[in-house]
C-alpha cells in the first residue's frame, strides 16, 4: 500500500472512532428524552409515589436537592479550606506531598466503598441512622477530592503579580488571600464545586447505603429522616417495576435527573467561559 493510501485509511478510521464517541452521548440523551417525556406531567412532578411504581416523584426530587445542597454545605468549605492550605501555606514536604497524593488518587474512588464506610461509621457507629445527614456527609467524602483539586488549580492560576501588589501594600498573607486571591479564584472554585455537585446528584451506591430506601413518600423533615433520591428511585423502579407505566416513570425520573445534572454542568461551563476570561490580562 502506498503511503498516501495508508494516510487515507488512518484518517478514515479516526473519523469513524471520533464519530462514534461523539454520537453516543447525544444518543443517550435523546433516548432518555424520547422515553421519559411521556411521563412528565404536573402530577408526576408534584405527587408522591404509591404502590411502588405509580404516582409522582416530588419527594425524590426534593430528596436529591437536599442531599446535594447539604453535601455541598459540608464538602465545599472543607475542600476550599484544604486547597487554600495546600496552595498558599503548605511548604513542599512529605506531608504535603502525601496529602496531595491522596486527594489525587482518591478522586474517583469506587463509590460503593465510600457508601460502606458511611454505613458503618456514620449510620451505625455515630448512630445517624439511614438519613439525609448520613447520606449528605457520605456524599461530601466523595465530592471532597474534586473540590480540593479544582480549588487548588483555581487558586494557582491567580497571577502572582496580584499577590505581590497586595503584599507590597502592607497586607498580610491572609488578607491577601481573602481580598485578592479568593475573589479572583471564585469562578474556578465554583466550576469545580458545580462539577462535584453534578457527580453527587447522580450518585447511587452511596445514597443507597446511607440515605434511605429511595421510595420514601415524604420530603425529609429533619436531618435524621430517611430520604428518597432520584437515582435510587430509578434503580428500584427499573429493576423491580412490573408495568409499562413503571418503566416510563423510571425514564421520567431519569429525564428530571438529567435536567438537574445538565443545569449544573452548563452553569459550570458558563462560569468558566464567562468569568475566567476576565482574569487573564
Amino acid at each position, binding site marked *: 500500500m502506498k503511503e498516501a493510501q495508508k494516510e487515507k485509511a488512518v484518517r478514515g478510521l479516526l473519523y469513524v472512532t471520533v464519530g462514534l464517541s461523539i454520537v453516543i452521548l447525544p444518543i443517550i440523551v435523546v433516548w432518555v428524552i424520547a422515553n421519559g417525556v411521556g411521563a412528565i406531567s404536573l402530577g408526576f412532578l408534584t405527587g408522591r409515589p404509591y404502590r411502588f411504581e405509580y404516582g409522582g416523584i416530588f419527594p425524590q426530587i426534593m430528596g436529591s436537592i437536599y442531599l446535594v445542597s447539604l453535601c455541598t454545605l459540608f464538602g465545599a468549605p472543607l475542600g476550599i479550606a484544604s486547597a487554600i492550605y495546600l496552595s498558599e501555606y503548605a*511548604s513542599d514536604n512529605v506531608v504535603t506531598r502525601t496529602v496531595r497524593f491522596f486527594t489525587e488518587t482518591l478522586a474517583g474512588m469506587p463509590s460503593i466503598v465510600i457508601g460502606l464506610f458511611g454505613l458503618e461509621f456514620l449510620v451505625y457507629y455515630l448512630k445517624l441512622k439511614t438519613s439525609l445527614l448520613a447520606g449528605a456527609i457520605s456524599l461530601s467524602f466523595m465530592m471532597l477530592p474534586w473540590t480540593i483539586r479544582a480549588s487548588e488549580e483555581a487558586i494557582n492560576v491567580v*497571577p502572582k*503579580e*496580584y499577590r*505581590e*501588589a*497586595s*503584599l*507590597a*501594600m*502592607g*497586607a*498580610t498573607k491572609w*488578607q491577601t488571600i481573602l*481580598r*485578592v486571591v479568593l*475573589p*479572583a479564584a471564585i469562578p474556578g472554585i465554583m466550576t469545580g464545586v458545580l462539577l462535584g455537585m453534578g457527580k453527587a446528584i447522580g450518585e447511587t451506591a452511596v445514597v443507597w447505603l446511607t440515605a434511605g430506601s429511595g421510595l420514601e413518600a415524604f420530603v425529609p423533615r429533619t436531618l435524621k429522616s430517611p430520604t428518597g433520591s432520584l437515582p435510587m428511585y430509578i434503580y428500584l423502579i427499573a429493576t423491580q417495576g412490573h408495568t409499562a407505566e413503571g418503566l416510563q416513570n423510571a425514564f421520567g425520573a431519569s429525564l428530571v435527573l438529567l435536567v438537574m445534572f445538565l443545569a449544573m454542568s452548563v452553569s459550570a461551563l458558563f462560569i468558566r467561559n464567562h468569568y475566567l476570561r*476576565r*482574569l487573564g*490580562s
Partner: protein
Amino acid sequence: MSNTYMINGDAAAFSPRLALDKVVFKGFNLWYGDNHVLKDIDIAIKSNVVTAFMGPSGCGKSTLLRSIDRMNDIIPSCKTEGDVYIDGRNIYEPDEDVYELRKTVGMVFQKPNPFPMSIYDNIAYGPRLHKMASGEGLDKIVEESLRGAVLWDEVKDRLQENAFGLSGGQQQRVCIARALSINPDIILMDEPCSALDPIATIKIEALMRELKDKYTVVLVTHNLQQAARVSEMTAFMYIGEIIEFGATSDVFENPQNELTENYITGRFG
C-alpha cells in the same frame, strides 16, 4: 552616619544639610539559597530625589530595590546579612513590623498589575485594608491618589469600570495611584515602563519627576536613557555589587570605573 559608598564628581553638591539620607544600606548581603545575589552593599539614598539603579540583567538591581520594603522575604530561600536603615531605623531588626514598613513604602512593578476589580476598588484597596477612611473620606483619597498619578481627568467618569479596560500606560498609572493611596514616603519602581509604549513611557517619566517633590523615588531600569532623563543619582550595578554611585550627570559623562564606561557606551549590557 559614615558614607562608605563611592561617590564621584562634586561630593559637595550633595551636602548632608540639604539632602537627608532616607535609605541607607550598610554591609548588606543577600542570598537566594547558595546564590550570593547582593554583595556588601553600601549606599545612601537621599530624600526627594530620583535615584536610579541600572545595570545588565541579573545584576541584582531589582533585588536591591525589593530589599527596601523587604519584599524578598516572600521567597523562602532568601537570607540576608547587614543592615538597611530608613530614617535611621534598621528595618532588618527581628522586631521590625514588615506590614507597617510596607505601608510607608509604595511599590510599582514591571508589568502593570491592577487587581481584577474596578478602578475605584483598586485605589481604595490599601486605605480599606488599613482602615484609613470610608465613605466620602475614601472618595477623597481615591481622587487625590488618581490626581497624584495624573490619571484623574481620564478616568473620573468611569471609576466603577474594571481596571483591565484601560490601556497599559493607564493601568500602570492606576498602580502608581494605588501605591500613593496609603501615603508612603518612598516609591519604589521596578522597571515601570518596560511593558509600555513610548508615549506612555514619556507620561510615566514626567510623573516620576513630579513625584520626587513629595516622595523619595527609587527606580530600577535597564534603559540608560531613562536613567539619564529622570534620575538625579545613579548607581551602576554589576553581578551583585555597586560598581559606581554618584550624580547621574557624573556617572554618564565622567565614569570612574571601566565597567561603568563600557556599559554606558554600549559595549555590553
